[in-house]
Structure formats: C-alpha cells, structure tokens
C-alpha cells in the first residue's frame, strides 16, 4: 500500500486568507522557477470558491475544510511535457519537500509534500499531447474560518 509522507511540522491555517496566500505563494514560487514564458492559468477552474469540506457529513460549522487551487500550465512552444514534470519535482525537492510519483494518477506525475502540510501536484493529462496541470492544496482548517468571497488570481504569471 502506498504510504504518503507525513508533514514534519504541520501548520494549520488560522484564516482562509492564510490558506489561499500560502497555496498561491507556493504556486508562484514554482512558476518562477520554471522556464521563461511559463504561466499558470486558472480561468477554466473559477467554479466555486476553491474551498471544500474535508468530511462527507460536516458535523457543524467548525467541521474542517481545505483550500485547493487548480491550474492549466501554459508552457513555451516546444516544451517537453514529461521533462517539465520531472523538473518541477526536482524544484520542490530543492525546497526540502518530499516528492513522490503516485499510483492511480496519470503518469508521469509528481506530488510535493511541504513540511507545513501543504501539497502541490503536477500531473500529465490523459492525452499526452496536452500540457500538464498543477494543483495546490492546503491542510484542513476549522470550517468557521471559511470565507468563499476571497478572489483567486485567474492567471499566475512569472515575476521578476
């Protein structure tokens, strides 16, 4: 059975803003480390707020939720999609994250587990001619912190 890494120093978000800011910071750091011309396009995934319950039957207003941010990768022409997935995993490793390829998802894929409990995942498409997707997820936090009104940037461009 596949064993998933356990975060070394988990940090439960204390606000919705913190969860979103942290996910988006990790996504920004990732895109900044990739080849020039790369961006993360979330315009197809603006449905909902990105926040979802961690339990099927939430026990009350405090029942935990977590935040996810889904993106299509826009890559420079001619990019090797398999290579970019491997490269992204290596970037996360350099940050001290645990990185694995998981079963059950389209391969190649890489899941990066941060020490604070946040997760990034880059995954090939079922159609290998399409560029990969990238998703960031926060740890679960109390549901009474949920705020569905905080906007997400449609596109994350490289900075600097």
């Amino acid at each position, binding site marked *: 059975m596949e064993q998933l890494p356990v975060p070394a120093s988990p940090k439960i978000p204390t606000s919705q803003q913190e969860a979103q800011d942290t996910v988006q910071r990790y996504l920004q750091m990732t895109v900044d480390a990739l080849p020039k011309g790369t961006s993360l396009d979330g315009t197809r995934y603006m449905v909902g707020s990105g926040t979802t319950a961690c339990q099927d039957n939430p026990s009350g207003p405090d029942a935990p939720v977590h935040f996810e941010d889904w993106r299509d990768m826009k890559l420079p022409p001619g990019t090797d999609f398999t290579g970019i997935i491997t490269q992204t995993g290596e970037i996360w490793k350099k940050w001290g994250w645990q990185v694995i390829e998981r*079963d059950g998802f*389209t391969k190649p894929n890489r899941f990066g587990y941060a020490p604070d409990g946040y997760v990034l995942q880059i995954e090939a498409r079922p159609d290998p001619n399409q560029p990969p*997707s990238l998703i960031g997820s926060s740890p679960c936090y109390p549901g009474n912190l949920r705020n569905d009104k905080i906007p997400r940037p449609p596109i994350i461009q490289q900075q600097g």
Partner: protein
Amino acid sequence: VTVSVADIDRWDPGDVREVFHATRSRAEAVFEAADGIATLPAFRTWSGDAARAAQLANEQLRSDLDAHGTESLAVARAAQVAADDMVKVRSDLSQLEADVADAHLAIDPVTSRVMPGPVIRDPMIVLLAEMEKFQERLNAILARAAAVDEELAGAIRMATGADPIPDSPHDNRPEIQDALSKPLPDDPKQFHDLWQQLTREERDWLYRQNHSIGNDPGMPLVDKDNYNRLHLDELTRDAQAQVDQLARSHPEWARGEVPLISSREWESWKSQWDNANHDLNGYRAIQNELQSNDGLPRILGLLDDKGHAAVSIGNPDKAKRNATFVPGTGNDLPHLQSSMDKSVQMFQAALRADPTLNPGDVAVTTWMGYDRPLDLLDAASSGYAVNGAANLDAFEAGMRASHEGPQSINTVIGHSYGSTLVGAAASGGHHLDVNNVVAVGSPGMLVDRASDLSLDPGASVYATRARFDPINLATGFTLGPSPTWDSFGAIQFQAAPGPTTGPGILALPSVDAHSSYWSAGNPALDNMGRVIAGLTTVTPPTP
C-alpha cells in the same frame, strides 16, 4: 386546522376521486361542445356580413365554453391533488403504525399520541426514547394531513362557488386549448414538445395552478429554474412565518430556555420548532448556493416542501458533458453546501481531464430528490432507494428530452446510499437514460451484476471504494453485493485507501475513509473527472 389519527382513518380518497371524475367529465363535455361548434359544416360555406358576425359570436361562445370547461378542470385538479395526497398520508401512517407495533408500542387515535403497548419489554428510558422518535414521525404526518385537509377544503369551496376559480387561458389553437384542458403529459418528450408551444402567459398560468410545475420532467432547465425559484421564495416565506409564529407563542422556549418539567405542550412545540427551523435552514442553504457569483449559472431543477432539491452548476440543457451527483446517507438540505462542494470538485476534475472542454461545456447537478436515510442503521434498508427510484429515472429522462443540440454524455455518480438509489433507478422496471454510472463507496446497488442495470446501449458501470471504507460492514450486505467485487462486473478504478482508525498496526476501517473521495489528492476524483469528461480509460486499483 388539527387533524387526528382517527380523522385520517375515516378519510376515503375514493370519494374525493369521484369528485375529480365528475368534474373532469363535465370539463371534457364542455370542451367537446366548443370544438364541435368550430367544425359545424355551415360555417365552412356561409359568407358575407352575417357570416362574419356569426363567426365572431362563435369565437366568443367557444371562448366562454373553454373558460367554463377550464373552471371545471381547476376543481378536478384540486380534487385529484387532494386524493393523491390523502393516499400518501394514509400510506405513511400505515407504515408508522406497523413500525410502532413492531416496537411493542401503540398509537392512541383520538389524542394522536404514541403510548406504551400492552407488553413492556424494554427499560423505561429506552421506551421513552423510542416513543419520542415515533411521535416526531407522527407529528410530521399529522402536519401533512392538516395541509391535505386544507387542500380539500379549497377544492370544495371552489366547487360550491365559495372561492373564486383561478383565471384560465384561452388559446385559439384547438390542439393547445385541448392540451391545456388535460393533465400535462407524463412523458418527458411529449411534455417538452407541448411546453415549447405554450405562451409565457400560459406557462405562468400553469405555475399558478401548480407551484411544483418546475419539477415536471421535460421542461427546459432555465424554465424549471424560473418557476422553482418563485416556489423557493414562497416556501422560504412560509417557513419563516411558521418559525416566527412558534417564537411568538413561546418566546422563552424560542430563546432556548427548557422548562423544568416536560409537558406535552412543550414536546409538541419543540418538535414543530425543530421541524420548522430545519425546513427554513434547508431553503436558506439552497438560496445560498443559487447566489454563487463565479460566472457559471446555478439552476434549481427540482424543489418541493419535503426536503428534495436539485441544483445544477452550469446549464445541463447546453452542456456536452452532463453529470448528476446523488449524495447518500446523512446528507440533508441544510448541509447542501458539502454536497455542492463535491460537485464543484467533479466539475473541475472533468475540465482537468480534457483541456479542450470549456466551463460552458460541463454541467454537474447535485440531485437530492429522494428521502435519504439519515444514519447508517437506516441505510441497511432498501426502502429509501426503491421509493426514490422513479424520481431519478424521470429526472434523467427529462434532461435528455430538454437537451439542446447533439446528445450529451450523461453520467450519474452515486455516493454511499446514493449509489443504491442509482441501482434502484436502473432496475425493477426503471430505466436510467445515461451513458455512465459511477458507484462510489457503495453498500450495494440492489442488483447482482452491473449488466443487470437498465442503462443506455453501450453504457459503462464504474465502481470504486477506499480500502478502509467501512460501508459494507455498516450495512451488512443487505443491499446486494459490493460493486467493487470482481463478480459484479463493474470497471473498477483507484481510490486512495483513506485514513484508518484505532492503533495504526490494526489498520481498522474508519468513517472518514467513506468520505475522502473528493480531494484533489485522491485518484478517485481524478478518475471521476475522466468518466464525466467522456474518457474511457481509468486507472485500475493497485493491489
């Protein structure tokens, strides 16, 4: 109006149906007379001023006859609704009486109270808890009975002229006037064809006759949304008025103060208070979902006052990929958000699986159109699924009938007991008009094999279950074999094993594993996205 169990026992739906048949016959005779005038041979050969004058008079006469026939029909419809509702109330009461007898309790028909039976077998504390549970069910039945009583009184007042009969439309197209004089077609395709020919005024008139018309299969989803939102506003106002009235009657109880000594009045008030707040919270939860501002439409495709609703993300009539999510045990309208969250996740997963799809190409509907078991003990019974099967069957057939453009790829995803309902809707004489069925954490689908399900030609059945999902243990295999057994014949796909409970070394199943399927880090969601997107490759479970 108070109605007792003894009153319900005296009800005879047959008598009310006679009113329906008599008024219906009268309406048909009048409509026949109106049609007959239109086809009199003299009007085909006669010409000149006198003929034109006669023609005008004829039009007026036909209009008057149509109006009279429609009035008779309004009474007939009201009687029919009352008779149907009486049957339902009596059926629910019979079921409750049987359950009460099984528990060695009894119902006093005059006071409408659940009482200890002649033989007391359980400790008093257990007995009281049982009685309270049954009393709540009885109170709900009595409340519905009071509403039926009022419906019937309304029909009688209309028939005797004490109440005005609602206005009625007149359509110069004889086939449309004829269609409006009859019950609307049950067949979704026929309903859709008729609906498309009606004027806005005629549609609005039909809504005034029946505030649940937005649930009729075959109506375009945008029209369902229009009429169901009107109904939602009305139901919300009624529920708020009920809460306000109860609060006024006992302000201290409404503030949460509990009397030192319990009384029947307190018990009755508390039961009504809980039910009214539950209803209001359910309607508010629907309103919240409809107010989403992410740029995608939210469509209220189903609504009633019995805890049923369906909310679509995107427009199913225009979508190329159309999914319906059926939640399971314990999901209730006040918690609609958690089910809608799962639909959002599946919407995203479908887009992720196929980057050529745009958001407008996809719709995911959260369908809560059946009475769901509220705990795992209840979930061992097939009754909830069997009772709700026709509703899902009709809803899916309706979406096919109203869909615009080339046929969409339709998928139904059932979670937990929702998959049992899906199984019931595709067996036992029902047909589910879909291309894919997905059973997630299923306790059984009431059939032995996937091939026993009645689906569209070439349809696929998928199944997944987290390794530590305890669902089969909880229900004791009373609902059929697990769809994830090889012998069932479903296409299985990978799900994360889910968390365990107890000491790690024992790796015991956990309730959390039953609900861990909709996170981005779970391959089950990835695979559901592929199926909804119309892809046929999923990742099989690893040993």
